[in-house]
């Protein structure tokens, strides 16, 4: 299995506090890789480091062999990586359509971009209904769909998603995960951070557990009983052992 994203020995710190203490993992092409772990484990930090928003102190992050560390977030998008950030971060004062166009900022094929906007409307009919509405007026679920669609507008080969289910109603979460599986079937490689271990294990091909800035377990769903995964993901191994 070919690794699309290879993260090796990444250390990221906020001032003196190391949030990532040497993280190594990989995400395989065409697969859904999921990262689970308790709050404060460093999952979002890892996503932000991969997307180039945070600069690591050490380590390397390679996309198909090309180093991403040191590139600006915009260059990383240009390399085919898009992040759907935690809390969605849509542009609230811009219309749904403008949010989508912002996602295609680097593309010069305006005809294709217009076709992709239509494709997003077909995939997310709710966005089509609200295309001229300001993104800030959308519901949480609609904003999440918009954030996913905005990320897809850059035509990424690797889609990073940071807690797409956060704060959403169960039925909306199910819809979002349906979309994740669908995108993956269409060939998009997905690297997902998720709190909802039950759902994550349903779609993931491979998963990692992270705790206090380190990867503590790597496996395939089914290798470890789900309740054990959940216990470790939420409580952490240290606390459950003690």
């Amino acid at each position, binding site marked *: 299995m070919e690794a699309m994203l290879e993260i090796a020995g990444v250390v990221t710190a906020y001032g003196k506090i190391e949030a990532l203490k040497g993280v190594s993992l990989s995400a395989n092409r065409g697969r859904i890789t999921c990262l689970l772990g308790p709050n404060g484990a460093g999952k979002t930090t890892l996503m932000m480091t991969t997307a180039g928003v945070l600069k690591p102190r050490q380590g390397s992050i390679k996309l198909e062999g090309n180093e991403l560390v040191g590139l600006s977030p915009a260059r990383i998008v*240009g390399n085919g990586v898009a*992040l759907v*950030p935690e809390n969605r971060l849509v542009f609230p004062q811009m219309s749904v359509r403008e949010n989508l166009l912002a996602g295609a*900022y680097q593309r010069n094929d305006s005809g294709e971009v217009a076709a992709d906007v239509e494709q997003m409307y077909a995939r997310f009919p709710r966005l089509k209904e609200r295309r001229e509405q300001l993104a800030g007026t959308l519901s949480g679920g609609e904003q999440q769909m918009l954030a996913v669609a905005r990320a897809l507008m*850059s035509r990424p080969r690797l889609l990073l998603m940071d807690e797409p289910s956060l704060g959403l109603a169960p039925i909306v979460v199910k819809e979002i995960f349906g979309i994740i599986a669908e995108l993956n079937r269409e060939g998009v490689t997905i690297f997902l951070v998720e709190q909802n271990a039950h759902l994550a294990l349903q779609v993931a091909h491979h998963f990692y557990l992270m705790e206090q800035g380190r990867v503590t377990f790597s496996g395939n769903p089914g290798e470890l009983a789900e309740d054990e995964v959940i216990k470790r993901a939420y409580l952490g191994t240290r606390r459950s052992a003690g």
Partner: protein
Amino acid sequence: MIPFIQTTLDGLMVGSSYGLLALGFALIFGVMRRLNLSYGPSIMVGAYLGTLLYIQFGAPTYVVAIVAVAGSVMAGVYVERLCFAPLGVGAGVASMVSSFAIWMQLEQASLLMLPRHSYPFPSLTSSELLSLGPLVVRPDYLIMLAAMLAITAALHVLLYRTRFGLGLRAIVENSVAASLSGIDVQSTMLKAFALASAIGGVAGFLVLSANQQVTAMLGMWATLKGLIAMMIGGLGSIPGAIVGGLVLGVIEVHSQTLFGPQVRDLAAYGVLFVLLVLRPGGIFGTTAISESVGHRGGDRWTTT
């Protein structure tokens, strides 16, 4: 009634130059949420370069205009690279303080070029008044008003009809999300800074050619007028900058007519004070400053 209308009209004309100054300020503040106190001194550098060419070599007016705008842009880019680009989005105070230090530097550099307190500046038109029925206007003020309208319209098109404008607005809303969408935040900010300085340069040139002289107070004057007009209109608001400038101009000219020139600035500060007490966000600031300014989208994810 006619004198009142005449005074108001004069105020609007003067205010259009304040509006232009505030426009540049608002553009920088809107995008970066940081105050560039060196905005006026940057304009001064451009104006002084133009003046130098004018008095030393008798450069024609259009050359002076081009040099004034280009010099302002150069100085603005210098300020951005030195005070804004190296400091993160969160370092608003550090940028402001360092831009204050650069203010002194730019002002001293200008005074080394031309050490006297004032110099002549080429005028754009004849000083003959145009009459509009019972009212009269100065042609150079009319040009100022036209320039303000044209630049505002052009800025609107740029912000709402172009890809650059889309990127700029995205950065205003959330610079982290903008960078994750593939927008090069650093270079877009630099371009916005250069653009704002160019608008300031145009404003500076038009005001000086109307006054037909340039003084060492230019830097201070431009920063103050632009800042006050922006604060009246609403921090970082483009329509607010224009309205704030016009309001400031009308207040100043009316108070000068009523109470004399000594009261002119006093009245402007008084109105600013009352306005900020009643409406801290300015006329177009729909929310309080803390909400539009203190809340950078970029910080949101780090706090969770």
